[in-house]
């Protein structure tokens, strides 16, 4: 297993900066996702690790060895591309043996390794097919197998599920995750799909404009975003502007907002009078006819303006006193109707002051 260190990586294309002073350490056997909108530099970062992009500044180390100047073929990486990039003029077996031939693996060992990896990706029996004779999901698994059969130091996946239909994509997330755990290979996974990143990763790296905005596991990224940008990119959020009123002994802050006082969490040390932006996820909010009955619950009152039914949830838009709208996701059988006066209740734990 290999540890990957990226240190101060910077890459410009002309005047545009693709990756800006990016540093991260990826542990042995860890799966790290690079998550961000298109053009955020995640693919450039991945291609720098692969050796297809030569960084302007910075180093990439595998197990402490600087490989920045090595060409891709000498880095011992396995890579899976968005469109799979299977060699169309080769059968599945020939595709898999390509990397082994380049490594001068003996013929009988080659056959063994190919059979073993085909077993892992559940493609045994298809080795004499050409890629065009396979379904998208099968091609995907061949691409994975081709990257794994060479037993690379690092596995790099560039939006590998983007071309699959929604159902298959969800299945493949779990497949890739369990496969990666079984093989125990250090993996970098590029995606713009937050759900994919959350399912698959040990840690998520959120990127915008070539910079890392936050690194953490799914819970951390989702519930404790470091900026409004991150919170906005991942899931839906309500933002409420206010000022710190006091800090309680148990570590919560009381924030004075136009919608009333909100008790919330923060990782910052704030003083009374500081500006604070409170984030509440729509699914953290429960609708009730009664005001909060315990001090750990925040309550904001308003009138239901819209209700829409999405099958697995019911979405509400609640118009509050100062004219702002709170988004709420309730159970689909929740009976609130348009025009009702309701209380939006949420736990202090689930209200989060976004550091600015």
């Amino acid at each position, binding site marked *: 297993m290999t540890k990957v260190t990226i240190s101060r990586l910077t890459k410009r294309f002309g005047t545009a900066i693709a990756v800006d002073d990016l540093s991260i350490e990826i542990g042995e056997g860890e799966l790290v996702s690079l998550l961000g909108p298109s053009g955020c530099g995640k693919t450039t970062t991945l291609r720098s690790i692969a050796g*297809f992009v030569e960084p302007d500044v910075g180093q990439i180390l595998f197990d402490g060895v600087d490989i920045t100047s090595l060409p891709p*073929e000498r880095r011992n990486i396995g890579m899976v591309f968005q469109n799979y990039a299977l060699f*169309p003029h080769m059968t599945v077996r020939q595709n898999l043996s390509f990397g082994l031939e380049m490594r001068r693996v003996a013929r009988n060992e080659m056959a063994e390794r190919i059979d073993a990896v085909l077993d892992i990706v559940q493609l045994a029996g298809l080795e004499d097919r050409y890629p065009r004779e396979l379904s998208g999901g099968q091609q995907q698994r061949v691409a994975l197998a081709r990257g794994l059969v060479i037993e690379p130091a690092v596995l790099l996946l560039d939006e590998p599920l983007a071309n699959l239909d929604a159902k298959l994509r969800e299945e493949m997330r779990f497949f890739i995750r369990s496969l990666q755990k079984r093989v125990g290979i250090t993996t970098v996974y590029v995606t713009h799909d937050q759900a994919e990143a959350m399912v698959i990763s040990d840690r998520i790296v959120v990127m915008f404009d070539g910079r890392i905005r936050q690194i953490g596991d799914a819970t951390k990224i989702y519930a404790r975003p470091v900026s409004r940008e991150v919170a906005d990119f991942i899931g839906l959020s309500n933002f409420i502007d206010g000022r710190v009123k006091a800090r309680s002994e148990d570590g919560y802050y009381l924030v004075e907002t136009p919608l009333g006082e909100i008790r919330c969490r923060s990782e910052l040390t704030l003083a009374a009078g500081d500006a604070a932006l409170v984030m509440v996820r729509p699914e953290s909010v429960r609708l009730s006819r009664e005001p909060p009955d315990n001090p750990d619950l925040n309550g904001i009152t308003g009138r239901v303006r819209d209700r829409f039914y999405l099958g697995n949830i019911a979405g509400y838009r609640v118009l509050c006193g100062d004219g702002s709208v709170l988004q709420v996701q309730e159970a689909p059988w929740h009976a609130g109707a348009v025009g009702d006066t309701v209380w939006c209740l949420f736990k202090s734990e689930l209200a989060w002051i976004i550091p600015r």
Partner: protein
Amino acid sequence: MDHPPIALDSGPAAVAGASVAPRGGRLVSARRLPKNSVLLILPTLLFLACFLVAPYFNMLVMSFRNPSTSAVYAPGFTVANYTRALTDPYYFGVLAQTVVLGAVTTLICVLIAYPVAYHLARTSSRWKGLLYVGVLSPLLVGVVIRCYGWIILLANNGLINNAVKKLGLVKLGLPLMYNSFGVGVGLVHVFLPFMVLPILSAIQSIDPALEDAARSLGASRARTMARIVIPLSLPGIQAGAILVFVLSISAYVIPILLGALKVKLMPTLVVQLLIDAFLWPFGAALAFILAASGGIVVYLFIRATGRLMRGLR
């Protein structure tokens, strides 16, 4: 959610949509061609029949005629023209030289065209447009003018020979023209675009990610080229090679101007027989033999390369 009025408005639109559907259905059935649409190809068919098939047939008949010194041909039919052409070592030698020169020209064209085509297919340079023009430039000027350009360069007292003589590199001058070398230079120059363009389009249709994939699997640039790019661009190489070969063995102007009559090739020989020696039946037979030989070589080439491309779509 909050668009019920719009949903109500969609009533008339839905009606309009319903009326569109059958029209669409009729459109689909209209794609089936009407019965007498064969008439559409009639003009082309007539044209080809008059100006291609008929002359060919006339030539074919001519090639079986008896030769005559006082008329175009003498009465009666014979196969003597063909037996003479195939058994006389002189004519067979000319045929062999023609095919060999065509093959060598084709090979040199492949070797020169491939790197150019690869570069053009993969470059994102702003000079790309200019490069295209450069590749196509041989087609922009008439072949006669281009040959005279080469004569100025290659002639015994041409630019190159004068230069090397002045520099004292050689005493007598190099034989650059009136030999297969000069003709080959002309053929390669003129027919190069016919090689570059098919290879270019073949390489453009290869996903660059395939090259990245090969590199990531441990293949060097050279091996990626040999195992991935070249095999996948074989259809382009094949098409270009056929074009260049067929054009080369039937070229007339270039051999005449750059080889004079010192380089014996079939097209020049046929014209000589027809115009100078007035041996129409024999000339016609030679022309058919050249066409048949070209056809056989191309057929064998397609067979051979087809085996290499079996995995391709």
